[in-house]
Each structure stands twice: as structure tokens, then as C-alpha cells.
């Protein structure tokens, strides 16, 4: 233990003082650990246990990089550097992989550790969980990386894999799906995973702009193009040069402008309003819509040729009610975010809430779930969201639905089958848990599983 003493002063410690210091370090709300010159952990406080998920027993004596598991450990270990250069480094950003194999952003400070005689004995690192800060920062810049798309449903995981493959290419993408399913999140993820990630990501909402303004917004204008055009204005396409442009609600793009967009796609150039000189641009186009473009084409509201140019690949994000196994995961994710935002420690929803949420049809999809959890966290005064702390309009909806639910389930076997399967999958096929969520007896659940032929095929 002596090697971990910090050089507070050069005088000898009485044993009592040592315990006092250790007690102090243990109770501080900051992760702290120390290593010897072999990078073996010789001190590990309670907060370090909390952030990493490893207990003190598991961590002591291990090499720090085998516990913290960060990318920096391989490239540029600051703790090693502190020891070697006898220097302190503050507020270095890093990401550890905790025991649950979840990535946790941390802010670290490192310094060398001396013994009483002033001889260097190892290093010392303090770190704080930086998730909230990183999350806020991301919200601020509205940048979602691939990891921010939370999903475990098989359809979604397949989408993510496709996404990963196509993000490196320049092919245009159309993302469809109901409101709130995560079209924007996916679009940002594609950009962030592409080679264009350090170039602009520009979002244009085609539905939010008055028709008269869309053209100048997208393509810009020359000074004098019309009465109010006192200076040149850059269009969004120019701003996005080298990067990605997201055409949100592409279905609302007026038919006259569709021709101009087609020209950009075909010739990679366009004329700003009032300009005779074409401008060259290199942008990747992602379009989103919650309307059916093929129907619009039939009704001549959308150009078929444009549709085929935009559609290098089209994928539909399924509504949340068709991937209920994502619900528990998303709940956890939003609890995490909003607990931090509201400075609370809400860790779970109680079983009634889970049941209500798993049964809800979510016309507003993930956005609706996010709002419900935010509300619940904001009003809850302990570490659990209870049914009573849910928004009143949501409660009204589920209660009226519950009255007819029983007969509905009986009428619709396939619904029940899907529901059971989803809950089983989201609970790793834990029969006990699933029965509890469904509020039925285990044997009833077994019977139903047999009836519908539900077996876990993933376990070897």
C-alpha cells in the first residue's frame, strides 16, 4: 500500500492519516486509481468501481489497460506519458469500455506518483463519467454516429449493417418510414460513417419552406436576381459542397424544382437564381419522406425520373410497434439521457409501465416514447417511473385500449404470438421475466410457446 501514498508533503505519515486519506479518496465522487511502474493497479476507489463496473477485487493487481480498455491505451497512454515525462495532463478525453461492454466517455487527469523520498513509484489517474456532457454536445450539434442508433430488433440490425456498407459509398439514399421512427438519426449516422464526415452535413426541410423560397434556399441567388437580392446568397447545395445534404420531406418539393434537382444530380452543377454561370458541386444526397413516393408518382406529383435518380438504395425504417423488442432498450437509453438532464437517478420503469409501453402502438414512434420517458423522469421523485407519473393523455389511451385488449388478443392469435416472441427476445428468452411482463403464469407461457411453436433458435 505504501507505493500509493501521494506526495502531499515530505513528512512521515502516521498510520491514522493514511487511513484518513484512503477513506477520503474512496468517498470522493470521482473515479481514482493508481498504478505501479508495471502499470498494475494498486488503488481503485468506489467511484472507479461504479464507472467501470469492475469491483476493486477484480481490478487490483491487473494491468490498467486490461480493465479500462480504451483505444488510447494502445495509441497514446497518457498515464504512461505522465510517468515517463514526470508531468501532469489534465482533462484528456477518452472512452472506456465498461464491464457491460458499454462505451463510457470519460474526462481524465493523470499525474506521476512519488513516494515519501520523492522517488517515482507509478502514476495516478482521476476520471469522471462524461456521458452527459458528450450527449449534450451531440444534441447541440445534432450529430448522431452509428452507435447512437439504438436497436436490437433483427430488422433494425440488418438495416444497420446495410447502412454501414453503403455509408462509405456516394450512392443516393432514400429513407422512408412513419414520423418519429428515426429517419434523421439514420441520415446523420450515414454521414458520420462516410468519408465525408468531416465535411458539412446540411439539412433542408422541404416542407417547412414556402414554395417561393425553396429555390433560393437550395440554389442561392445572384445580387440583383430580384428586387430584394441586395447581395449574392449561397444556396444550401453550395454550403454542403464536399459533404452530404439531407432533403427532409422530399415529397413536398414542388414539381417545378424537381426538374432543377434532377439537373444537379445528372450534371453535378446548377445555376443560382439570376446567374448565367453554372456552379459545380459534389454532394451526397439523402432524402427522407413519410409519404409513399410511388403513389405520388402515379398522381403525377413526383417525377418518376427524379425518383430513380434519388433512389440508389431505399430503405424503410419499421414503425416501433413492429419492433417491440427495441422498446426496453430505448427506454433504458432515454432513462439514461434524461436522468442526467434532470439530475436524477431514475433507473427503471415499473412493471405496469413496461407492460403499458410494450402494448402501446406508438403512432408517434420513437419520438413519442422519448417524450413519455422524459415526462416520467421529470416528474418522478424516486428511482423508478410509476404508472401514475406517466403523461395523462397516454394513460387515457392505454386504459381505454386495455378494456378491449383481452378480446382483441383472443381474436388475434398472430398478434399474441408476435407479442410473446418480442418480449421473449428482448429478455434473452428468460421465461420467468417474460411471464412476469405478460402477467401470466410460467406454465401458461410454456403452453402458449408450444402452441405457437416459439423456440429459441439462437442458442447453440
Amino acid at each position: 500500500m505504501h507505493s500509493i501514498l501521494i506526495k502531499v508533503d515530505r513528512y512521515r505519515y502516521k498510520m491514522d492519516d493514511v487511513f484518513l486519506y484512503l477513506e477520503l479518496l474512496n468517498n470522493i465522487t470521482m473515479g481514482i486509481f493508481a498504478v505501479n511502474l508495471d502499470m498494475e493497479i494498486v488503488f481503485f476507489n468506489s467511484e472507479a468501481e461504479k464507472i467501470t463496473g469492475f469491483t476493486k477485487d477484480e481490478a487490483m493487481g491487473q494491468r490498467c489497460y486490461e480493465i479500462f480498455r480504451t483505444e488510447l491505451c494502445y495509441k497514446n497512454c497518457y498515464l504512461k506519458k505522465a510517468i515517463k515525462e514526470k508531468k501532469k495532463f489534465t482533462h484528456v478525453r477518452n472512452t472506456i469500455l465498461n464491464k457491460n461492454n458499454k462505451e463510457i466517455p470519460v474526462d481524465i487527469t493523470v499525474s506521476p506518483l512519488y513516494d515519501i523520498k520523492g522517488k517515482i513509484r507509478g502514476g495516478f489517474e482521476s476520471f469522471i463519467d462524461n456521458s452527459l456532457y458528450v450527449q449534450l454536445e451531440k444534441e447541440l450539434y445534432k450529430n448522431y454516429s452509428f452507435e447512437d442508433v439504438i436497436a436490437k430488433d433483427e430488422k433494425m440490425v440488418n438495416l444497420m449493417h446495410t447502412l454501414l456498407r453503403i455509408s462509405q459509398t456516394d450512392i443516393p439514399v432514400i429513407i422512408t418510414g412513419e414520423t418519429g421512427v428515426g429517419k434523421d438519426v439514420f441520415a446523420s449516422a450515414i454521414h458520420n460513417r462516410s468519408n465525408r464526415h468531416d465535411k458539412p452535413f446540411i439539412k433542408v426541410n422541404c416542407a417547412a419552406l414556402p414554395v417561393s423560397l425553396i429555390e433560393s434556399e437550395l440554389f442561392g441567388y445572384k445580387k440583383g436576381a430580384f428586387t430584394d437580392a441586395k447581395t449574392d446568397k449561397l444556396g444550401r447545395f453550395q454550403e454542403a459542397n464536399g459533404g452530404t445534404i439531407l432533403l427532409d420531406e422530399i415529397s413536398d418539393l414542388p414539381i417545378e424544382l424537381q426538374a432543377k434537382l434532377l439537373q444537379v444530380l445528372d450534371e453535378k452543377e446548377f445555376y443560382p437564381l439570376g446567374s448565367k454561370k453554372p456552379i459545380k458541386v459534389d454532394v451526397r444526397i439523402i432524402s427522407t419522406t413519410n409519404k409513399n413516393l410511388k403513389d405520388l408518382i402515379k398522381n403525377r406529383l413526383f417525377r418518376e425520373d427524379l425518383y430513380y435518380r434519388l433512389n440508389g438504395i431505399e430503405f424503410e425504417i419499421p414503425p416501433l410497434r413492429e419492433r417491440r423488442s427495441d422498446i426496453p432498450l430505448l427506454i433504458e437509453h432515454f432513462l439514461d439521457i434524461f436522468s442526467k438532464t434532470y439530475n436524477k437517478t431514475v433507473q427503471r420503469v415499473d412493471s405496469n409501465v413496461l407492460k403499458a409501453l410494450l402494448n402501446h402502438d406508438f403512432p408517434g414512434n420513437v419520438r413519442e416514447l422519448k417524450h413519455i420517458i422524459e415526462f416520467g423522469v421529470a416528474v418522478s421523485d424516486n428511482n423508478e417511473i410509476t404508472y401514475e407519473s406517466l403523461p395523462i393523455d397516454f394513460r387515457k389511451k392505454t386504459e381505454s385500449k386495455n378494456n378491449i385488449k383481452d378480446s382483441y388478443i383472443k381474436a388475434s392469435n398472430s398478434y399474441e404470438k408476435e407479442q410473446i416472441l418480442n418480449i421473449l427476445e428482448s429478455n434473452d428468452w428468460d421465461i420467468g421475466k417474460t411471464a412476469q411482463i405478460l402477467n401470466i403464469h410460467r406454465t401458461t407461457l410454456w403452453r402458449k410457446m408450444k402452441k405457437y411453436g416459439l423456440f429459441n433458435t439462437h442458442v447453440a
Partner: protein
Amino acid sequence: MRFAICSLNHRVAPLINHTKEIIVVSKVQKKDISIKEIEMASCNALEILKVLKDNKVKTLICGGIKEEYSQLLEKNNIKIIENVIGDIGDVIKMYLHKNIHSNNTKRVRIAK
């Protein structure tokens, strides 16, 4: 019995994405154990999966494993024993002597 270990400098790679070698251990009979070392030029999830499939391995011992790896491997019925720390030789011995347990869950968490 056959299993594989993600290795870096003769220890279990602390992060699976820094695996340098995949060690495939097969035990045919009591004393008949063969060990094959496969060098990985790069180690994205698909490449690891390919090596496991090519070598008919269904159990993988590793240290830290990021979600994109575990999802792909689990989807392909690979049993993952994660958070293992230690020297490759020790880990092989421990696994052969059943000191690394897998209970019923698909993923097993152990440290040390």
C-alpha cells in the same frame, strides 16, 4: 471440444478490435490437444467471424467486446465468453479444466 481466444501479445486482447492472433484450441481426446494460431492482418467483426466459421469454432473467449462485434457474432450462434483477462496459456488451462464457467445465459461475464 473446440474454442478460440482473441489474443494480443500472448494475452487475451483487452479489446477484441485489437486482436493480433486468434488462437484455436481443439481437444480431440483427453491428452490430445491441438493449438492453431491464426494471424489477423486486420480484425473487423466480419473477419473474425470468417476465421471462426472457417475453423468451425462456436465459442470465443475475449476481453472487452464492443456491441457491433457481439451482435454479429451472437447472430451467428457464436457463444461469447467476455471480460476474460490473462495469459493465453493460463486461459486455455482454465477453460479446459472448466474453471471458466458458462451458465445458461448466452453471454458469460467473468473477470481475471
